[in-house]
């Protein structure tokens, strides 16, 4: 039995269905999130297991993994980010087009994990804004899928004007990220 996405509320008639634009776009976005797996260490191997046939991330619409920031929506940071790597991560985030989401997988990406050392960045939210944190060391594939499902919720319910709002721009400035217009 195939479970399809529920249709949003709207007015239905012979040959037409009228609903609000943001609901349609929300459904389209949330069910076709193309991830960029930024896999650095052990969590990357659990991600490979999540992509495999047993846990199958593709059934959530994340069929097309790409390693190019230009064509993806979701930056999945999996693994330890060291201070040497932080500028690279920021550059990859900058290269992604709006709307974009960030999923921080694993304890190392969320907060530095067990590596409270001089060379490890204590959490990627020091350099880029993060939407969903998935703790674990490494998190089970089921947890990574739940993280993705939370991103789907965010994508579905996001207002179309969110990325242009002042609050969002202020948040980007606090990370020293230039927003698109500038």
């Amino acid at each position, binding site marked *: 039995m195939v479970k399809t996405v529920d249709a949003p509320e709207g007015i239905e008639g012979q040959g037409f269905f009228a609903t609000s634009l943001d609901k349609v776009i929300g459904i389209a976005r949330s069910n076709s999130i193309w991830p960029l797996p930024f896999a650095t260490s052990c969590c990357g191997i659990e991600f490979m297991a999540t992509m495999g046939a047993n846990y199958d991330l593709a059934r959530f619409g994340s069929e097309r993994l790409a390693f190019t920031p230009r064509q993806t929506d979701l930056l999945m940071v999996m693994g330890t980010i*060291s201070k040497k790597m932080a500028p690279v991560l920021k550059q*990859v985030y900058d290269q992604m087009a709006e709307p974009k989401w960030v999923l921080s997988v694993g304890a190392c990406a969320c907060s530095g994990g067990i590596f409270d050392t001089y*060379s490890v960045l204590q959490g990627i939210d020091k350099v880029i804004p993060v939407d969903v944190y998935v703790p674990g060391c490494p998190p089970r594939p089921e947890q990574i899928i739940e993280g993705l499902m939370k991103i789907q919720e965010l994508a579905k319910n996001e207002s179309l004007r969110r990325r242009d709002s002042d609050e969002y721009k202020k948040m980007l400035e606090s990370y020293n990220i230039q927003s698109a217009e500038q």
Partner: protein
Amino acid sequence: MSEITIKNTGQIISTETIDGDIATLNLGPTHPATHGIFQNILKVDGERILSAEPTIGYIHRAFEKLAERRPYNQITPITDRLNYCSSPINNLGWHMTVEKLAGIEVPKRVDYMRVIVMELARIADHLVCNSVIGVDTGALTGFTYMFQEREKIYELYEEICGARLTTNVGRIGGFERDFSATFHAKLNKFLEEFPVNFEEFDRLLTRNRIFMDRVIGAGPITAERALEYSFSGPNLRAAGVDYDVRVMNPYSSYQDFDFDIPVGKDGDTYDRFVMRQEEIRQSVKIIRQALEKMPAGDFHANVPEFYLPPKEEVYRSMESLIYHFKIVMGETAIPAGEVYHAVEGGNGELGYYLVSDGGRTPYRLHFRRPCFIYYQAYPEMIVDSVLSDAILTMSSMNVIAGELDA
């Protein structure tokens, strides 16, 4: 006619053979085909690579400094994260190092149990490497099928220690629990099903005309150069030198088992691929022997100073309570001394150089990481080959970033 000398290797290429300008290409650190984060700045003439300059350290987590802060039983979780595709081997190698330093002798049963766990880890590691070689040549099917087999190995790990990937398995002196009946049932089922599925994967690639044309001759290295670079493990054996730590310096009763060491000829990607396939078969053979000949006995040594006593006794007997307290707080009495112990990891000789001053944490712990040492030879292996062969060479060398940078 002028010549240019390649910086790292001293090879000389005549500029007459260069057709056009030399371009600089940045491969990494985030690149889909590099399976790990390390950077190579290549100078290319069209597709032909003239030189490579690797930069590593993008995942340096300071394990050696971290180990100076942690008591001996708390270092096991960080050894997990070295070669995370085969973490039980790292864990058990560390326990053997501490046992060597403290003079603990474990019962034979523990040795055989350790052999089973380590060979399962070796199979898991080689499966990743070989399916990824397939992916890099465009054959994704093998990857999907072999990752299902890895799920079965993960279930076996979960039976013995509760975790899938970063296992933290075993204790100093043995194991935390004996192998349960479920584990035996699952292992027997694995030993029945896995060889069949594995041969299916093998038939996809090993004698496949397209695959062979693609990988034969990619990234070769001679045995002499490999020894100069201190290669070890499958990469060295593919070049023709039969050095295996399990045979040279047997540990954990490996001398009781009958297995072959496959050896290659040219040291190119095809040899490395076939090497790992054959090693997987040998690992299955070892696991079968260990299961058959498993001696009865305790699953841990009788060393209450290092091995947590059972909880019932902790609540009843004063001594057990004190031992429990001391072990958990890290006040174990490891003697002073220095020791070097090596195990055969998935990538080669994984060595632990441990200096203890009798305190609660190591004074100095150095990991001899095979990936770090053999990755030095990468520029030499890819000079004068094409870019796509360079990618294949990197994935066939099985470079795991955690072990590279530590």
